[in-house]
């Protein structure tokens, strides 16, 4: 289990959530607070680039990420600090004027870069990072007062141009203070890759020993996770229930598994002949509610299985939630006949 919730964490471990495959730094150009074009890839070459999508009227996630990063940077040496570029891309260009962006970011750290653009430009940048496009959420009748639902994680691109880790909401100053200096001091990414590989190995061992179990994090709990024994060598369906006991909406943004190359959330659409499955880019978890992924409705598909799965095996699922961060859960493989019972859909006498 990565990061913020592990009780006994290894002092050498990264606290950010390790991406299953490193993400190459995207190339895009937006407009900075001085109205000049700002080329992300060129401006952040050989630097650690912290990239975040947010909005200045945000009551929680955005100011907290910015304040926590600023606080940790302040305590780093001038040399190390100079190797970090923090980039805040607005998802609310109508209200976040360049002046407002400059002023708001300046309150945290005057070196923070604020970027804006047209709605289309901003959406295409979010698409490059594969985060769900930000949406407006109106709280009441007043059309000028609205929240913006946006990805809550900070992407950390290492100096070699790859993001190996992301930092969801819930990451603390202590976590940044642990990870940032290590990102800054590795020009080639070699040490980062080595450390993350060792971490992944230790996690896999913990799973084998059965140390990892269904868990809760930040008011989120995953229960009744099962994988249906697949008929195919190639893919399997997984089902689970996510309880979001927090007052905020969360979003399931990514799924990975130890025994599959990829994981996706699928939705069954249409009726009869037209019935088909469609991958969903993300799954919204409403506040104070449980979201069930059950057969015939929304479910998880594990694609490109690394080996054939039989009843009695177990698969570790890694869920990335935009607010709560990473959640890891062990799902036993059960025969189709026992599926409903395992999911608690039928009452056993």
């Amino acid at each position, binding site marked *: 289990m990565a990061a913020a919730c592990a009780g006994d964490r290894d002092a050498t471990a990264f606290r950010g959530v390790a991406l299953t495959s490193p993400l190459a730094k995207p190339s895009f150009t937006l407009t900075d607070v001085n109205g000049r074009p700002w080329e992300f890839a060129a401006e952040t070459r050989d630097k650690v680039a912290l990239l975040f999508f947010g909005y200045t009227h945000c*009551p*929680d996630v955005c*100011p*907290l990420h910015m*304040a*926590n990063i600023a*606080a*940790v940077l302040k*305590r780093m040496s001038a040399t190390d600090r100079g190797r970090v570029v923090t980039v805040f891309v607005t998802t609310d260009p109508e209200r976040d004027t360049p002046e407002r962006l400059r002023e708001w970011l300046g309150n945290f750290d005057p070196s923070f870069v604020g970027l804006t653009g047209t709605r289309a430009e901003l959406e295409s940048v979010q698409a490059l990072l594969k985060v769900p496009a930000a949406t407006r959420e109106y709280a009441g009748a007043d059309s000028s007062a609205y929240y913006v639902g946006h990805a809550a994680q900070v992407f950390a691109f290492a100096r070699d141009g790859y993001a190996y880790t992301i930092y969801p*909401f*819930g990451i*603390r*100053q*202590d976590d940044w*203070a642990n990870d940032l200096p290590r990102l800054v001091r590795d020009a080639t990414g070699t040490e980062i890759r080595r450390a993350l590989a060792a971490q992944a190995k230790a996690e896999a061992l913990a799973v084998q020993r059965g140390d990892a179990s269904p868990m809760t994090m930040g*008011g989120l709990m995953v229960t009744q996770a099962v994988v249906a024994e697949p008929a195919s060598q190639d893919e399997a369906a997984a089902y689970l229930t996510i309880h979001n006991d*927090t*007052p*905020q909406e969360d979003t399931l943004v990514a799924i990975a598994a130890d025994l599959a190359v990829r994981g996706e959330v699928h939705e069954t659409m249409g009726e009869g002949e037209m019935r088909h499955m469609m991958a969903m880019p993300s799954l919204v978890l409403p506040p104070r509610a449980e979201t069930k992924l059950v057969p015939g409705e929304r479910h998880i598909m594990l694609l490109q299985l690394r080996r054939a799965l039989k009843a009695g095996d177990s698969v570790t699922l890694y869920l990335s939630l935009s607010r709560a961060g990473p959640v890891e859960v062990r799902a036993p493989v059960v025969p189709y006949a026992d599926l409903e019972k395992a999911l608690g859909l039928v009452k056993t006498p």
Partner: protein
Amino acid sequence: MSFWCAATGQPWTWAWKAYPGVWLFIGLLALGVWRWNRAAARWAGTTAPPAHPAFAAGLVILWLSLDWPIGALGAGHLASVHMLQFLLMALVAPPLLLFGPTRDAVAMLQGPGSGRSIARWLVSPFPALVQFSVVVLATHLPAVVDTLMATQAGSMTIDLLWIGSGLAFWWPLIRDVPRHPRFTHPVKIGYVILGLMFSPVMFGLVGFLVNSETPMYRVFELAPPLPGVDARADHVLAGTLMSVGGMTVAFVAISVLFYRWNRESA
């Protein structure tokens, strides 16, 4: 509407909120002491005197520390306000509240019964000092605070522990301990010094709050921020409050004890 203040993760607003659990608790406390005093008066064949003004002051302080806005800010927004609540609930309100029960009411504790003997044991000096230190330490551990403050029941548990533990701590200083050898003034002064003024537990907590580079409590670090408030500065202020508040209360208590000692030996 919430029963008791807890960390909700919601941004802070100055819009008033009702916490009926707090009113119920204050009401029950006032009613309980009133009925205890009446029962004691009947038992002693006297009439119960009106409420002591110090008791009323203690109730008001307790109410202010639990209700909106202090209660709500301290439960889920600011470590410093949470610390202010601790000072009010454990150090300021209890010594005032202890003027509530009449002499006859306290004398009733001398009777038989296991409930009474547990109560007598709890308010005798050594157990009182030990339980107070344990409660102060436990209720300030980050894992405990971060877990309990997220729910109303958990937040209420912390508040009630502070109040109960504070009452037991102050009891031997303010009231006689039934069936216990008299607690002399010099020993009382030592008790205040060890439990409050130079309490190793409080010194340790203050040290962590003031010196740690990163904020100690997740619940306050990641709460929706109040404009212009920095999480670390808030934690440093919490530590400063604990040390200054503890010292001030201890200083006042020791001064009163010295004064009484002087007067009695004169």
